[in-house]
């Protein structure tokens, strides 16, 4: 068994663009942000110009509770590149506000993951500078 930890190697890191900068700025500030629709109240991720629920352009940034459940997962043993330590566990998390986000699981043994697992966001500054969201189990 392996305790899952954030990656600290020379991995490919996000280069924020005009649409995504508020998301990554939120991570640096310890907030997991998503776009909330002024027309229907729906939640949108990844950052977009249209609401994922109703296509309205009336989107404003909101702060997530950071809590959700694992929707799907995989444990990776053959890494994308040698910069990644294995195993790592990419998960899709269904957030309490109804949106899906992809990140890696940390803070538990690799074989503890399961669909429906209650998780919460945790932010880790990568040594190269940008702060990435990960998820760890919550009670």
């Amino acid at each position, binding site marked *: 068994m392996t305790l899952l930890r954030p*990656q600290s190697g020379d*991995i*490919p*890191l*996000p*280069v*924020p*663009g005009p649409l*995504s900068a508020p998301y*990554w700025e939120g991570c640096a500030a310890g907030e997991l942000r998503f776009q909330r629709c002024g027309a229907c109240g729906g939640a949108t991720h*990844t950052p977009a110009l249209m609401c994922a629920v109703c296509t309205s352009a009336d989107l404003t940034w909101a702060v997530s509770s950071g809590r959700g459940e694992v*929707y*799907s*997962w*995989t*444990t*990776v*043993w*053959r*890494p*994308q*590149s*040698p910069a*990644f330590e294995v195993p*790592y566990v*990419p998960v*899709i998390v269904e957030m309490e506000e109804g949106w*899906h*986000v*992809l*990140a*890696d699981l940390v803070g538990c043994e690799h074989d503890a993951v399961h*669909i429906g697992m209650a998780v919460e966001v945790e932010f880790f500054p*990568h040594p190269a500078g940008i702060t*990435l969201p990960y998820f760890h189990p919550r009670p």
Partner: protein
Amino acid sequence: MAQHPFHDVAIVGIHNTRQARVLEGHDDRTITMEAALGAIADAGLEPRDIDGVIGPYGSDFLYQARVGPAWRSMSPLGIPALLDGVMAIASGMATTVLFATGGAGSYTQRASTAPWTRPTNEFVACYGMYTAAEFALMARRHMHTYGTTAEQMAHAAAVVRNNGHAHPDAVYGGRGPFTAADVLASRMVADPFHLLECAMTSEGGAALVLTRADRADDLPQRPVYVLGGGTDYYGPAYQHPPVWDLGGHQRADLVAGNVGRRAAEEAFAAAGLGPGEVDVCEFYDPFSFEIVRQFEAYGFCGPGEGGDYVTSGAIEPGGATPVTTDGGTMSFSHGGAAVQLLQRVLRGVEQLRGDCASMQVEGAEVAMCTGGGAGALFTDVVLLGKERP
């Protein structure tokens, strides 16, 4: 039924170059051109009979053959590009179209996964994502929802790999036979996928020639007709979370996990056929679960029944719907970044000509060829027939 415009088009020439893990002395351009000239020769034609081209080196072909002015598709790969050529011919924009593709020399950093498996994107790359992990997230959701098992997926992989074991030109020909237990004993890549459930990386070229059906009878090969086709896309591959339930706004069951369903419905409607009339399933096989998934998506079985379907004997040689008869991307070849997205079509043509070198389906009249997969948020379908509708 009324004639569909696709029915005016036939495939009259095909060629696969040698496929290998590495093709020394080749690059994308040379292996693509070798495939192109092979397909033109197979069709009994000369380079200057071509008046339309598809593929990244199509324009290069036009220049080398000094055959311009000509029609050119800007669609780069796979069944959508094939259908571009079909539509060009059906609408009179071209008469004889070459579709050539090839890959060699681009995968050099072998400690990493192949470059085409890991597009850079700010929401996935930093988490170590690449194709196997993307497809695994779809497979895991299906296992959770329907109880599909690792053994069922491994069986599908064993069937495909055993077809490749028997194909003389397969990169992994003669490496089997495999059982589901052998597949499950191979090392884990991205859970639930073991090594033998994943596509290989390799190099090679593939090409075909399309022309008007009324001209096909004058050519040496038995023509194979385009009965119908369709393309389903839910967004760019490998940039957003691969959520099974993505979509559903048009119709509740049209979600990313079922991608290809609408394309198959359109293809069957154009052909006037249904799943029960398909003789051979040349399904794209990037990962074992995609075989399970496609039989559900296209209506060969119901939701959640794919695991039972692939272990029922139906997909083996001699079954009702033999699958991926040359070993596909797991055993025959991947051919580079895009070649494999055409190779199902070539094998479908061979099955209908009756000269497939492995697992020839006796009396095959209808072949279903596909490309893509749920993990990539797209699936394309084309139905080929031995007789013109």
